[in-house]
């Protein structure tokens, strides 16, 4: 080995450090560190959820944005719930992953409506392009290479846990609404791109329905939208619900914001996220509800 005075020692140090680092990572992954709901990177937080969801069959699959991403899925140790929430993305990204067969879908599909019109007219995101690629597959098959196993993400999650401390209380009564109560036929002007987006969602949902998958559209509590835009999104969701013949619920009508906690005014805090998920599952009539973990204070 030129340029190195002791190639043997150098190689020994290199290989030993590599082995020790993998060993330490493996040990950490066996503990709570393996449950990584949110790392420092939107991209890898989303990828971690998708990898976890793609690793084993789901009984419920969630698609949406970072609002959905906060709901506890398999990546948080919540067996059976595949969470395809894409931070900074929209419902369409998760739906397109399912529609293209790159990620499997459970018998029940929950679609967030808050971000139906986010990223309209844009190109497919880097995240959706990454799913199915060699790195993604390596991470799906071997947890050490997964997005959830990134040391920096584990460090960030640990910091969050340390900072946020005690769990929140839950246990508010759930109110179930029939979708017809909130199926709004709000007349609204959509741009061509928005119309294409709505049609795209209807088409993808139609394909899933034809496979016998039960679908529920959900407006999640949280997120911050300008009133005019929020009305447009509601109209788009109503149009999808009506055309695809899938029920829709507005969770904000059921669980008012004041009864929920948010980490930043937009995204649900862990306890509230667990409660919202429980409500959704109850509304969806999931016979055997996947276990929702007790509050972790993540």
């Amino acid at each position, binding site marked *: *080995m*030129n*340029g*190195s*005075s*002791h*190639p043997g*020692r*150098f*190689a*020994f*140090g*290199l*290989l*030993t*450090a*590599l082995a020790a*680092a*993998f060993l330490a*990572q493996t040990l950490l992954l066996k503990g709570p560190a393996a449950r990584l709901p949110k790392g*420092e*990177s*939107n*991209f*890898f937080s989303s990828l971690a959820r998708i990898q976890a969801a793609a690793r084993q069959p789901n009984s419920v699959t969630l698609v949406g944005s970072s609002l959905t991403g906060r709901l506890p899925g398999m990546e948080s140790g919540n067996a059976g719930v595949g969470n395809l929430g894409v931070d900074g993305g929209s419902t369409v990204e998760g739906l397109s992953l399912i529609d293209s067969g790159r990620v499997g879908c459970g018998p029940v599909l929950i679609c967030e409506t808050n971000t139906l019109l986010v990223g309209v007219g844009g190109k497919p995101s*880097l*995240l959706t392009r*990454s799913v199915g*690629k*060699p790195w993604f597959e390596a991470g799906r098959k071997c947890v*050490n*290479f997964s997005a959830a*196993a*990134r*040391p*920096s993400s584990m*460090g*960030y999650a640990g*910091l*969050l846990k340390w900072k946020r401390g005690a769990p929140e209380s839950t246990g508010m009564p759930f109110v179930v609404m029939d979708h017809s109560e909130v199926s709004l036929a709000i007349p609204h002007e959509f741009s061509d791109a928005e119309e294409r987006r709505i049609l795209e969602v209807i088409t993808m949902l139609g394909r899933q329905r034809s496979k016998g998958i039960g679908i529920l559209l959900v407006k999640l509590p949280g997120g911050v939208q300008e009133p005019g835009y929020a009305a447009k999104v509601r109209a788009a969701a109503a149009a999808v619900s009506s055309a695809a013949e899938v029920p829709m619920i507005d969770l904000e009508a059921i669980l008012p914001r004041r009864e929920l906690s948010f980490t930043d005014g937009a995204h649900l805090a862990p306890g509230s996220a667990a409660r919202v998920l429980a409500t959704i599952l109850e509304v969806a009539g999931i016979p055997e509800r996947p276990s929702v973990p007790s509050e972790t204070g993540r």
Partner: protein
Amino acid sequence: MLFNSWEFLVLLVLTYGLYYFSPWSGGRHGKAWQVTLLLAASTIFYGWEDPRLLLLLGVSCVGNSIATAKIILFKSQGDEASAKRWVRLAVILNLALLVVFKYAGFLAGLVPGLPVSWVAAMKAIPLPVGISFYTFHGISMIVDVWRGEVTRESDDMLSRGKRFAKGVRDIGFYLMFFPQLVAGPIVKAKQFWPQIAAKLHGDVRWGVVVRSLIAGYFLKMVVADNLAEQTGLLTQPALASMGAFELIPLLYGYSLQIFADFAGYSLIALGLAAMFGYQFPDNFNFPYLSTSLTEFWRRWHLSLSSWLRDYLYIPLGGNRKGEARTYLNLFIVMFLGGIWHGAEWKFALWGSLHGLLLGVERFWFRGRERTVSSWWMRVAGWVYCFQVVTLLWLTFLMPDMHHIRLFFEGLGRIDGARGPVLYTVAVFGGAVLLYHAAGWLKEHRQKWFSRFRGSWTEGVCYGLMLFLIVTNSGAPQGFIYFQF
């Protein structure tokens, strides 16, 4: 094709295997086989995304080969005037290529009264990847041959036919060799040409290969790509709502990211070249240790600084034509160096400000000892240099002056910062600081560093970097310097 893509890995492994272990690798035709193979691999590498780009590169190769042959021919006949005419013609044609494909739209926008459709047509000319680099390689070839610094091998080109074809092949190889093709380092012809020869597997400097590749991929994939996810916020609509506590860390983050991105690329290029038996000059020498801008430019993008010095600053007269002319030359070189990065006023502004500050430093140090000895002066110099360099990177990052204004307006807002921003800049930016701390030890604690070099503790550092490359790389991004 990107160095951090799977297709590149496949190309590299195949090329490496065929380069050293095919039946044609040794013996009489070893050089021909290896150079042709690398030329073919470089063609695939460059044409992978858009094969049409190869046409322009082919024109550059053949054009520079013809000019080189002519210059050698006339020089051997003692016809200096004709040789000089060919040098001028070749340099002008190389620059014309750059002007048409890189600056036409920009220049057309400056001409008053030009029909809008013409301006639009010129702005629509696509920028071929790496044109700034291979054009500079072409000019280096021409000038070094003219100066007699590249001679022996080029004499082969005196004859026509097969020998000329060999000359075209070798010049094409120099221009296209894939590690340096897209973003440098800008290896001068006089440095590269003597190295073109048959290579043996046993001669590979594995220490250089392993260190360069691991450090390069670590800086690029772990540091720069992770920082990019956060610093990218500065160019998005979110900029308008950010406050000082986010903007300032993000600007420092970008300063560290651009170093990690480009130094990482350069190290990968250096390691790849070493795999095939070629030695590239260092492109970075711990630039953020600099205590003045003058020193910064002796540590940052060394191959460009050296190119500009040899082929622009010295031909302009350098510092040999009086004080005033020296300042002017300095400014011209930095202004053109800025414009070289892109056909936009923001790059001109960046280069001009560097040129002005270099002039101010030169004036300040006039008649004084250039190296400051007291530690507090060094610290003060380091603080000044790092702040100025970082601030000026704003012009690189921001798409236009409006965004720069938004940045400064945001500095007036005192809001809380998002956790991921601070965490990412601290963790991944910290890696760049550690890298420079190692550089400081290398320069100031040489005895200690020489013991560290090749030891198992150094191996541990590289092992950890390798682990992080595999487990903690960021979302794949293109190299920043590819756009230049």
